[in-house]
């Protein structure tokens, strides 16, 4: 929450009905973007978004807000590049200032095998419409003067891939921009309405059961982050998801103008600067699946030792805040979008540590699927059925975590 949300938004709140054409579970980025695009692109406004807590209370309010498209498989590069472009025009489209800022992203390599991976990534990105180029250590230093090219003597920078289109945006503003756009067109958002079950008619899912009573729906979409396995199990759908905690932290403010976003696939950490000047950083998710949102000292210790190798100035800053989200990790580190095998139930999950950047494209594609009944070609490789077909979309190296 911030002053923008409190004072500038004038939202029409609606009395809940007991039946909608579409019910979306989860008022985070993906759920709200789907509702927004259903209303704006397809004229479907008989939509309810039901949320167990408040708007953006899950991972949409906990992520590290990086938008990039430098992925390692063609289908992903095209998908995330489309999302990156939708983000660029989102302020114009919604009329909301989401603090979008194109910064560029350096992905450092410290070994020959790391360099080879970055070269391959750059070439694939260029072939698929995303801009990623290789830069020398000196060029990297020009982009980010704070870099220690010796990596603290232990991780010398041999080069980097540079992705100039990478950006950041204020995460809760993105969520509220979609919420506002959807609500003004008649979408209902029901906060503090946990889904306790799914209504079935034979095999088909025909609505959701909530604390406030049943809500009938022509189609139900789960955009849940965290407890998606529980929701899917209500319709006997099995998911290949493990839910892991992911932690992040911000420091006190540093002089504004830190060069871009710095990421490191060998140290597995990433650093950017928020609009307030705070240094925002994250690293790997916790090894054990858990729904606990406790922050740990081991994480603080591990991320601090990593980032100070490449950005020594960070050791003089103080940690202001550390927090945790719970993210749904798919076995191939790619999202799962589309049909579940049960009529009337769609799912968008497996957003792991890469969900924020995908909000516009994921929402747009799911809205098209709901409106037309056809899976858009942009996401057809990301269906749940890919595991049965032995066609995993393995791209762990691009997640920047493990």
């Amino acid at each position, binding site marked *: 929450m911030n002053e923008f949300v409190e004072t500038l938004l004038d939202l029409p709140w609606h009395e809940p009905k007991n039946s909608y054409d579409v019910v979306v579970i989860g008022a985070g980025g993906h759920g709200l973007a789907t509702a927004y695009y259903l209303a704006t692109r397809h004229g479907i406004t008989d939509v309810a978004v039901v949320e167990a807590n408040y708007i953006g209370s899950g991972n949409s309010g906990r992520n590290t807000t990086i938008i990039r498209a430098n992925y390692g498989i063609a289908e992903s590069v095209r998908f995330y590049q489309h999302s990156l472009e939708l983000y660029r025009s989102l302020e114009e489209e919604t009329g909301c200032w989401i603090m979008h800022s194109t910064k560029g992203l350096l992905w450092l390599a410290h070994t020959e095998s790391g360099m080879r991976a970055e070269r391959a990534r750059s070439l694939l990105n260029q072939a698929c419409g995303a801009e990623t180029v290789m830069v020398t250590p000196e060029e990297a230093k020009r982009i980010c003067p704070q870099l220690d090219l010796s990596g603290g003597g232990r991780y010398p920078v041999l080069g980097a891939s540079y992705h100039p289109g990478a950006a950041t945006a204020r995460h809760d503003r993105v969520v509220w921009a979609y919420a506002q756009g959807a609500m003004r067109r008649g979408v209902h958002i029901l906060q503090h309405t946990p889904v306790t079950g799914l209504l079935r008619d034979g095999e088909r899912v025909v609505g959701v059961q909530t604390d406030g009573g049943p809500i009938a729906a022509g189609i139900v979409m789960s955009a849940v982050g965290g*407890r998606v*396995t*529980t929701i899917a199990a209500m319709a*006997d759908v*099995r*998911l*290949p*998801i*493990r*839910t892991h905690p992911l932690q992040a932290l911000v420091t006190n403010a540093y002089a504004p103008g830190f060069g871009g976003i710095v990421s490191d696939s060998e140290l597995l950490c990433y650093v950017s600067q928020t609009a307030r000047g705070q240094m925002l950083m994250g690293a790997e998710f916790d*090894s*054990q*699946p*858990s*729904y*606990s949102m*406790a922050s*740990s*000292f*081991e994480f603080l210790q591990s991320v601090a030792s990593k980032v100070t190798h490449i950005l020594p100035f960070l050791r003089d800053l103080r940690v202001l805040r550390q927090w945790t989200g719970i993210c749904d990790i798919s*076995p191939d580190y790619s999202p799962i979008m589309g049909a579940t095998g049960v009529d009337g139930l769609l799912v968008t999950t497996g957003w792991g540590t890469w969900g924020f950047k995908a909000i516009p494209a994921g929402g747009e594609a799911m809205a098209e699927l709901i409106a037309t009944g056809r899976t858009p070609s942009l996401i057809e490789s990301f269906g749940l059925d890919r*595991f*049965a077909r032995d066609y995993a979309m393995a791209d762990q190296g691009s997640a920047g975590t493990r």
Partner: protein
Amino acid sequence: MLWITCPTCGERPITEFRFGGELPHVPDRITDDAERNLDWVWMHDNVDGVTTERWFHAAGCRRWLTLRRDTRTDRVVA
């Protein structure tokens, strides 16, 4: 920090262990052999509550152990 009691080494910090996954469990209602196989290979219960799982004591005795953990509190339970 999560502490794990290793049968060989006693109570040790989680950083010494490697997570080995929940014990695979295919629901009885799945009867088709191919579907059972798919479920065994890919799907998880991803329990929101007490789960039974395997851990490997990588920086200790290098043996596997089975324990029960509450995923809501991240504490090992008896």
